[in-house]
């Protein structure tokens, strides 16, 4: 696993559920077909109500809805409480990853979303030790230092603590549950 992830921040609020991350009408595309799967990137976070998209100002699309575009300008998502609640759809972390997101930093996660991030190897789900939604602005240049468990906002010059990844670190390091089980000799 890379020890540092740097990119632009995209800030969302509390209780961002999987219907907002990828609405049900979009769950139909193939996740393996190289062209069709891009649609997940295109529609990532499309269900978030306009005022909540890209805080603090809102009205910032995660992915510009222009012809053929499926990639976001933002690589690090900052969320509040209970990120990824709702359905068990793995399409949610998958869609964020397809759009180019690499990590999510939230206060805490809904269980299945967290598990899907880890086991699928899609995104690194970090937990902050404080509320960052009101601290960081969409577009800030941020860096996740996984070795030191810090989040650095290069735009404001501030640094925040992240919790240790703990039990799931070996699975994240391996790149997902399959890779982990292979390394451990289970498969």
């Amino acid at each position, binding site marked *: 696993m890379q020890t540092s992830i740097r990119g632009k921040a995209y800030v969302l609020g509390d*209780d961002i559920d999987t219907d907002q991350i990828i609405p049900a009408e979009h769950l139909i595309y*193939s*996740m393996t077909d190289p062209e069709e799967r891009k649609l997940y990137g295109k529609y990532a976070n499309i269900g978030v109500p306009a005022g909540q998209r890209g805080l603090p100002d809102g009205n910032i699309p995660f992915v510009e809805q222009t012809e053929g575009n499926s990639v976001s300008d933002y690589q690090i998502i900052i969320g509040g409480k209970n990120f990824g609640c709702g*359905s*068990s759809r793995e399409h949610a972390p998958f869609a964020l990853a397809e759009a180019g997101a690499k990590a999510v930093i939230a206060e805490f996660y809904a269980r299945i979303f967290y598990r899907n991030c880890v086991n699928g190897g899609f995104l690194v789900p970090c937990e902050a030790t404080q509320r960052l939604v009101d601290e960081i602005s969409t577009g800030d240049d941020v860096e996740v230092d996984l070795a030191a468990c810090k989040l650095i906002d290069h735009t404001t010059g501030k640094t925040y603590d992240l919790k240790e990844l703990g039990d799931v670190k070996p699975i994240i390091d391996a790149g997902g549950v*399959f890779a982990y089980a292979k390394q451990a000799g289970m498969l």
Partner: protein
Amino acid sequence: MARKMTMTEKILARHAGKADATPGENIWVDVDVLMTHDVCGPGTIGIFHQQYGKDAKVWDPSRVVIIPDHYIFTANEICHRNVQILRDFVREQGIQYYYDPEFVKNEPGMPNPYRDPTKTNYKGVCHKALPEEGHLRPGEILLGTDSHTCTAGAFGQFATGVGNTDAAFTLGTGKTWLKVPPTMKFTFHGQIPPYLTAKDLILAVIGQISVSGATYKSMYFTGEGIGSLTLEDRMTLTNMAIEAGGKNGICDVDQKTLDYVKARSNRPEWEVVTEDEGAEYCYEHEWDLGTLEPLVAKPHSPDNKDLARNCTDVKLDRAYIGSCTGGKITDMIMAASLLNGHNVKIPTFVVPGSTEVHADMQRLNIRGELKAGDEKSIQQTLEDAGCQVGPSGCAACLGGPADTFGRLNEPLNCISTTNRNFPGRMGHKEAGVYLASPLTVAASALTGHVTDPREYVSEPIATGTAGLV
């Protein structure tokens, strides 16, 4: 002396081949049944082949259950293709339990729904079909690629939702890793009064602890109040454990559970697990059913609890009765008994949770008994009151493609027996969904505003043999 354990801890320990399973511990367990459907099945199958190779075989074709239910009655051709992916996999793997919507063809246009619900292989919503088809048993572990898999905890088993990668892993190995959750205990005293259903109980719980109050935790529902519920109503309770973030919800096993499972299970043996007296809980709360009042969850969160009688100024555009939460036969009887002889004031959509529910709606009267020749069926009663009854499936519970029956394509206010009211869940992002019991939804359909069902219900509503064996 051995540590006192909760049902969830015992089940997990047994499936890990250990004497004990302590909250916080990560363990590998053997899975009894793995369920998937048309939304997550194709992705799961993709990962399965990617990881294990194209000739790989599932660990046990008699323990994999595939139930297409989400996007069935739509002209969307990608949805038809996804059903075909399931069929191909079932054939390739010799999967024993697959419930095919044979009327969905790989061709353009809206599939013609089944004519007779007793004459189709299609079952409808997976969480209702699982017990009906004998896939649930006390003491077992069920995984499903659907967050409401926790519904099965009503049968005294451990059941939880997983993603495609987890499901693909289990498909190949029969195993998964789980972190043993601490347990929250919710005790209900007294008997269920006629104006409440389990929906009111679970809205009370979620309103109390919030949509994240049970994150990473097990929710244990107990007390004589739970014993007084029908098995179907217990399913309503465990179904919405996920709406509080719960890993699983679980109820004690009693005679009602045993009668049902004995009559339905497709395996002869299982082991009933009981809660140890003195087991440890991370949270406890008690309610008296005599003092609980009919509730709603207002937009846009299942924990936005209010008394139905406080919301009478909320004007409604639509009512919806359906889903794995509120589309069971007892839910239909509740609604039909209240609506009997009246006319709904707002468009009211009814979607049977399964084809068995649909069949029962046609052969039973509103007391849940086989209807006499000239007596009205449940479906007839609902239709005479002005409801539109659609074919079984997930339908508008999760929005789905734009041509889905009952979908909120405009920013309407809808009162619904479903389980989620996050923005956009039933279709339109600005629609306002009020979650409530089938009684409250039916009462509100009659007035066009949120209505406390006590205005219509005073006598207990008989459910006869409905939802039993």
